[in-house]
């Protein structure tokens, strides 16, 4: 029904998608699998008109189509529900479903018809909420279902679901699958993207595997073993990327540098206990929205604590904000590198010396020559490429931006490093370098908290792994007692027990 051949999308000079083929059949559920950064989102955006294709041919019912905007794609019956809920929170549920195709009478929006239509679609999804209520007042799971309701409320031919289950609980998932099967019977082609293998195997008929923006292959799920799928996704045996021999912390259990006890924060953390031990990497594993980022922010003083205490080397400290955290040797690197990390317009040197200068205060200016020397030594030590201090940081690749960020934090001579997804969105080579770097830092006695969505990575770098779910740390396990599969199971299971 829908066929993409040789789909290519360029971001600047890099191909995010390189000659990928995709076929969707009516009444079939198709999945795209791949690691983060494999090009799944780009592919979805390309077929839903959110991104233009740089090259390649998109055919719908055998006729060539070209979408200039999501609106075009929707006109052709292609509807998408994105991972981040793309609804408008300030207006009613019914309107969110109808927006753009509101029922009208005498040229006026017919609110009554809109509400009753919304009510029908919602009941179809097994959702009992007031269509007139404001969307923002509902939970994320409900909002996600409303997004799906919006997609199926029109004459949909191709339905794209990008990680639709990430904010749903088991019952809600089951409900969603029931709806998917129903749509399948109605002949809708469904593209279901999820990183939960179980779900892919439960609901999908066909799977296309991507790696680094390239097509690996298209397979029928019932003929394709899970292990082969994982292998196809990773494209390498996991060992080849092994970065460091896990250094076991001396058996005598070193004193933790930072220990948090029953920390709660309004952002959604309850009763978390964390120990950051010197020379150890604590991996944090959890799904999106599990509270992993909130945990990092809480213990590094970004978000205010509601309850609990944080001890630094055994003495209670009141961390009032990032500044006081830094003075205690705790530094935090955000998952959102562009918004909360790198200042794109400033040079590499300025980015590196920024925090150090801020800590010293405006009056004690670091001499330019000293700044240069300092920045140079970090560029050298972390192998930042190109080694050009005056280049605007925004022009570096993701991996090198991350290194600049690390250099900035390390210039503060921290004792504890809290890194939220430092390897997100950077290419494989740079990823390994950053991973190695983190390992080295820990070997040199730093305490590191390492958060990543890639469980394999968490397992590989962390000495211990804390599993976060629903804002709680459900368990902390030494990583040599875990495998990717058992960790996946723990992260995904509702009560954290494999």
């Amino acid at each position, binding site marked *: 029904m829908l066929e993409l051949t040789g789909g290519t999308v360029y971001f600047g000079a890099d191909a995010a998608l390189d000659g990928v083929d995709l076929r969707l059949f009516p009444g079939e559920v198709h999945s795209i699998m791949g690691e983060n950064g494999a090009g799944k989102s780009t592919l979805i955006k390309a077929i839903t008109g*959110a991104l233009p294709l740089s090259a390649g041919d998109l055919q719908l019912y055998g006729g060539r189509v070209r979408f200039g*905007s*999501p*609106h075009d*794609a*929707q006109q052709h019956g292609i509807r*998408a529900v*994105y991972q981040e*809920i*793309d*609804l*408008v*929170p*300030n*207006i*009613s549920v019914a*309107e969110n479903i109808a*927006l*753009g195709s*509101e029922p*009208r009478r005498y*040229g*006026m*929006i017919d609110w009554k018809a809109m509400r009753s239509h919304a009510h029908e679609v919602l009941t179809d999804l097994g959702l009992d909420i*007031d269509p*007139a*209520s*404001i969307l*923002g*007042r509902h*939970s*994320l799971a409900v909002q996600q279902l409303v997004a799906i309701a*919006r997609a199926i409320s029109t004459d949909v031919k191709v339905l794209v679901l990008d990680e639709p289950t990430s904010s749903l609980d088991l019952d809600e998932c089951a409900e969603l699958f029931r709806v998917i099967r129903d749509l399948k019977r109605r002949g809708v082609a469904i593209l279901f993207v999820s990183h939960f293998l179980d779900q892919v195997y439960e609901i999908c008929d066909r799977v296309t595997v991507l790696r680094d923006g390239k097509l690996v292959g298209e397979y029928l799920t019932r003929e394709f073993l899970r292990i082969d799928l994982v292998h196809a996704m990773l494209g390498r045996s996991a060992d080849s990327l092994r970065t460091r021999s896990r250094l076991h912390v001396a058996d005598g259990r070193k004193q933790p540098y930072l220990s948090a006890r029953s920390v709660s924060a*309004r952002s959604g953390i309850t009763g978390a206990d964390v120990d950051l031990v010197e020379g150890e990497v604590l991996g944090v594993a959890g799904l999106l929205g599990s509270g992993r980022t909130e945990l990092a922010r809480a213990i590094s003083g970004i978000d205010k604590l509601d309850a609990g205490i944080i001890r630094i080397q055994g003495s209670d400290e009141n961390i009032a904000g990032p500044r006081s955290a830094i003075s205690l040797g705790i530094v935090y690197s955000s998952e959102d590198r562009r918004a909360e990390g790198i200042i794109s317009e400033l040079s590499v040197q300025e980015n590196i010396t920024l925090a150090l200068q801020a800590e010293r205060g405006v009056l004690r200016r670091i001499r330019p020559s000293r700044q240069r020397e300092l920045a140079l030594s970090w560029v050298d030590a972390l192998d930042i490429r190109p080694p050009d201090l005056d280049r605007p940081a925004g022009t570096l690749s993701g991996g090198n931006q991350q290194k600049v960020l690390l250099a900035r934090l390390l210039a503060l001579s921290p004792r504890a490093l809290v890194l939220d997804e430092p390897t997100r969105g950077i290419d494989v080579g740079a990823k390994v370098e950053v991973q190695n770097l983190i390992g080295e830092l820990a070997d040199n006695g730093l305490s590191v908290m390492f958060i990543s969505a890639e469980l394999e990575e968490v397992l590989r770098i962390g000495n211990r792994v804390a599993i976060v779910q629903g804002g709680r740390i459900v368990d902390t396990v030494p990583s040599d007692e875990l495998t990717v599969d058992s960790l996946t199971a723990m992260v995904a299971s509702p009560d954290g027990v494999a």
Partner: protein
Amino acid sequence: MSARIAAPSREVVARRARTFLDRHAAMVPTFAALVIFVALLIGAQIHFGNFLTPRNMSALLLDNAYLLILAVGMTFVIVTGGIDLSVGSVMAFTGIWCAHLLAEGHSAVLVVPLIILGGAVIGLLIGVLVQYFDVQPFIASLAGLFLARGLAFVVSLDSIRVENEGVLWLQTTRWRLGEWYITPTGILALGVAAVGAFVMQFTRFGRTVYAVGGSEQSARLMGLEVARTKVLVYVISGVCAGLAGLVLTAYSGAGYPRNGIGTELDVIAAVVIGGTLLTGGTGYVLGSVVGVLVYGTIKTVISFMGAEQSWTRIIIGLMLLAFIVVQRVIVVRSERRR
């Protein structure tokens, strides 16, 4: 006995209140403005004894007609999350231009559409800057402010009297009902408010305005006409400013290039007091009407007291501060719920 009846009904009331809040939480600030308005009227009546007279109330609408028209346009802009600082100057420009053209002997039938078009063009300019050149609305409309003010001085440095009967008719005609009266300018203002409220509530364009204010990114992915909407709200604000220029010229019987300095800020204050969030996405045209009436009432109360008019500004400033704090509290609380 009475307690037994009261208990279940309290439960029903609580449930109804909850449904109401789920549906209309955004209206709360507007209700607050309405309550303040009514309290002001009652308080002034008790204090002065002769405040709530038909004459006084009719004058309230008459004196603030231009402000009301500007507030309607401003509501559209602010709900998308933008701001239009140009309206005071555009009003001055269209007003003086109107007076000038009429003084040259052109027909009002020609002049009135022309000045409204003038306002629309300046609005279009701001909208295009905001949408296609990605200029901050604050800056783009600041440029519009200077441009329009400059144009006003180009037209004339001094005030120009209006002798055109058609335009003066807008102001001098009084349709009476007992002691109450209304002028064509008052009807015009109410008409603009009614049309504005209708467009916001019952057209796709109006709903898109809310969607853009809620989340521009989502609105785009939903396939809505975001670009067109964002440009159009500034055009609407420009048209309203053009109309306000006409009304103000009729009201004062002359065009004056220094009119409306700082008026844009009064308008923004009235809109915010009427319950429109400066962050966009929430607000009502009728709320802005209430906001303008609150503003006008405070002004009248001050002049009744015989105090300096600068007290109006001080009180409006304090109210604005209180409203913005209340709005922040509402926003923060609703974010925390998620």
